[in-house]
């Protein structure tokens, strides 16, 4: 076992870069990067605007193994243009998902009795604000295309989302993450559609104060998303914790993973409509009001208690509806 991989495991997921995460999420020395820095496929649009480019256009794509299972990995780099999706970045994301599905098709054609433990899976580490405004048309198109690929994966390749980077997962990519089968977050991960700064910009500081970090985290952060049922698993902030949670999900049969998704059936919509009713009934003014509705007597305590204690005591809305 390589010592480099061992070192990676202890690292904070939040602080790590996209490549470190990708390497650390699969088994030691099994990650092969595709269309990486070596190929130097950077954005054709950014230079015209005088903006810095990156050899991998802010996303690491490749394939590795978890046990006998080929796992296709996409990992976004939040430090490069906020992880935003441009033309090359988007094409890499779309094509790694397509490649996972094609691998599935070819493997199953060659061997229809292929056991589940050897069937491919897709994992995406999201760290993005959505569309890259410098190349917005291509970025938007990529959002649609990746959703298309997700549809083609239905019934075949399970897709797991990881959210634990500094940028969080916002904008159109918030929708994309919600369309995956399962979401793993850390308490530092944030998931939403319109980002806090944009809400403040549009609606004013009275509506949402983006400089209030406590407010931002209790509205978009991992703990809140876990209570809401928007994320399936909440883990500690280390690459090992994310990897272990990911592997536990990948051990399940496809149908069980697909059942974790927050979309995809009438029953799910009906139970979500109950949440809407609850919202109308209680008219919450703050995330803590919702936590209380979920059955947490002292919602204020939930924000600061250690993670393991939080996981033991917390009541989730999904338990209620």
């Amino acid at each position, binding site marked *: 076992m390589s010592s480099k991989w061992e070192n990676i495991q202890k690292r904070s997921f939040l602080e790590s*870069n*996209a490549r470190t995460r990708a390497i650390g999420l699969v088994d030691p020395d099994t990650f092969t990067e595709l269309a*990486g*820095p*070596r190929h*130097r496929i*950077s954005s054709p649009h*950014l*230079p*015209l*605007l*005088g*903006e*810095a*480019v*990156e*050899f991998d256009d802010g996303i690491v794509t490749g394939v590795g193994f978890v046990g006998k299972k080929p796992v296709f990995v996409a990992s976004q*780099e939040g*430090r*490069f243009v906020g992880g935003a999706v441009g033309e090359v970045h988007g094409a890499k994301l779309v094509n790694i998902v397509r490649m996972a599905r094609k691998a599935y098709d070819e493997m199953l054609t060659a061997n229809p009795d292929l056991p589940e433990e050897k069937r491919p899976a897709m994992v995406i580490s999201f760290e993005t604000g959505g569309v890259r405004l410098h190349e917005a048309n291509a970025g938007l198109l990529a959002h649609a295309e990746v959703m298309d690929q997700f549809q083609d994966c239905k019934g075949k390749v399970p897709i797991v989302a990881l959210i634990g980077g500094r940028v969080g997962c916002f904008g159109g990519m918030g929708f994309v993450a919600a369309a995956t089968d399962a979401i793993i977050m850390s308490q530092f991960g944030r998931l939403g559609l319109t980002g806090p700064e944009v809400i403040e910009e549009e609606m004013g500081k009275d509506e949402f104060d983006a400089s209030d970090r406590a407010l931002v985290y209790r509205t978009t952060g991992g703990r809140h998303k876990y209570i809401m049922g928007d994320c399936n698993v909440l883990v500690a902030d280390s690459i090992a914790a994310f990897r272990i949670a990911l592997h536990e999900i990948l051990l399940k049969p496809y149908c069980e993973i697909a059942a974790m998704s927050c979309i995809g059936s009438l029953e799910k919509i009906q139970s979500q409509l109950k949440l809407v009713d609850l919202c109308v009934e209680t008219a919450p003014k703050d995330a803590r009001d919702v936590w209380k509705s979920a059955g947490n007597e002292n919602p204020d305590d939930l924000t600061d208690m250690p993670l393991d204690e939080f996981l033991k005591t917390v009541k989730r809305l999904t338990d209620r509806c």
Partner: protein
Amino acid sequence: MSRNLHEINFEFKTENPTDFSGEFVHFGVVGSGDMEVILEHKDLGGAVRAKIVTPVTGYDEVWRRVLERFVIDTGVANASIEINDNNATPVVVSLRLRQALSEID
């Protein structure tokens, strides 16, 4: 004013070259105030070729000095250095180059 990215090219020769031992190394992230570098073995008759792509203009001489210092100090030879920069300071540039080199071992 042209908004295009600025490209700078240099070639260095060192007095006591030690051949660049890695085949290919990539290090760093093009975050704000940061950069990435690719070090690659190239048969250049002992020389080192550097290409920098950066939005910053007017600092070509500083780049030359920082890179020359790196080449002299490390004695690296027969290598190409490719940098994508996003406003990294000279100290950060120096650090990232040395970190990249240490990735080989």
